[in-house]
């Protein structure tokens, strides 16, 4: 379970949010809402342990993130704004090499199957620079199928997706929640998911 107490985030001289506390139990998801520049991404980065809050603390399974970074990161799947995709590599290489560095080796067949489910069959061997923004986004989302992790932190997962991909993604998230996982998502619009918790910045 992820819990956050008295979190304050400061960027330069501006305070983005102050004294933020919440807890996210298993099988639940949390929507982080707020206008542009309200600090949604900053909050996600703090939750993921990428940056330190000015005040307050984040705990996972009752332990502070800093205490055991490796254990927390083994439980965490984070998808940020940026793609983390290499334009010169094919989608297949991007997936297998990226996951390889995280210590997972799903195998090419599993990776190809995941790409297929997001409608990318036939494009596995094409350099990623020939893919559209939405297709790149889908390559990234394949990680959700290939790397098991109880906690998902996804920044704007539904942007740039077509109806079919939105359907696949929401089914993935539902299944993740049903199997005891939890998720933190940011979004501007309403999400095609069963009702969850929400925080507005």
């Amino acid at each position: 379970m992820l819990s956050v107490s008295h979190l304050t985030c400061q960027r330069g001289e501006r305070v983005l949010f102050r004294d933020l506390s919440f807890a996210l139990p298993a099988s639940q998801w949390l929507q982080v809402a707020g206008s542009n520049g309200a600090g949604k991404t900053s909050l996600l980065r703090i939750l993921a342990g990428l940056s330190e809050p000015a005040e307050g603390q984040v705990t996972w399974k009752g332990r502070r993130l800093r205490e055991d970074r490796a254990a927390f990161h083994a439980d965490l799947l984070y998808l940020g704004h940026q793609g983390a995709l290499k334009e010169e590599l094919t989608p297949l290489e991007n997936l297998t090499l990226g996951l390889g560095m995280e210590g997972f080796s799903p195998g090419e067949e599993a990776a190809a199957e995941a790409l297929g489910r997001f409608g990318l069959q036939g494009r596995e061997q094409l350099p990623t620079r020939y893919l559209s923004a939405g297709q790149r986004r889908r390559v990234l989302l394949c990680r959700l199928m290939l790397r098991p992790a109880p906690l998902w932190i996804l920044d704007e997962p539904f942007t740039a997706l077509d109806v079919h991909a939105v359907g696949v993604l929401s089914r993935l998230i539902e299944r993740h929640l049903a199997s005891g996982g939890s998720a933190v998502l940011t979004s501007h619009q309403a999400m095609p998911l069963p009702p969850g918790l929400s925080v507005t910045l």
Partner: protein
Amino acid sequence: MNGAFAPFRQAVRRDLLLAARHKTEVITALFFFVIVVNLLPLGIGPDQDLLRKIAPGALWIGALLATLLGLQRLFAPDHQDGTLEQMALSPQPFTLLIAGKIMAHWLVSGLPVVMVAPLLGVQFDLPGRSLAILTLSLLLGTPILSLIGAVGAALTLGVRGSGVLLSLLILPLYIPALIFGAGAVEADLAGLGIEGHFSLLGALLLACIVFAPWVTTVALRVALE
């Protein structure tokens, strides 16, 4: 052994694959080295005795500059597209992944320099024994350049004017490697022993292998915040 170093090998493999898709960049750095070293005789004159004397220094400074060229792109592309974030969030030790990237950088920019060095040494009329010593000193020294350079690349990541800043930060720290490396060849040409130079160069390399990847990760975490 196999398990513990798996992330290291993964990172090396990935960066080598990327370098293979960017062959021109690798070749450009090597050409830069060859051209810089070849310009020196043109600026100084074709006096064989003088050239033999400056050869170690010329080749070492060429290697130094060629390393700097590639360093600017060591972390910047991965920082821009978010790969570095994913690496920092990986359950695998971040330091090992970074060490892999540094290793790949050396394989791509340092090793080719070491391999063409004997050819350039011949242009400076170095005797065979000195050629071997020069190549060996570069083989031990260029990894030091990559390792120290990685610290500078991490510190200047995403900073205004990072290219010039990187040289300002890193070049003074390269001095010991330059002195021991070029000094070994000079000492041999002067008929002195070279064991001292090589053991100091080796000690420097060991110290860098132990500390530089760790310092680089600390600096990268600061840059990612």
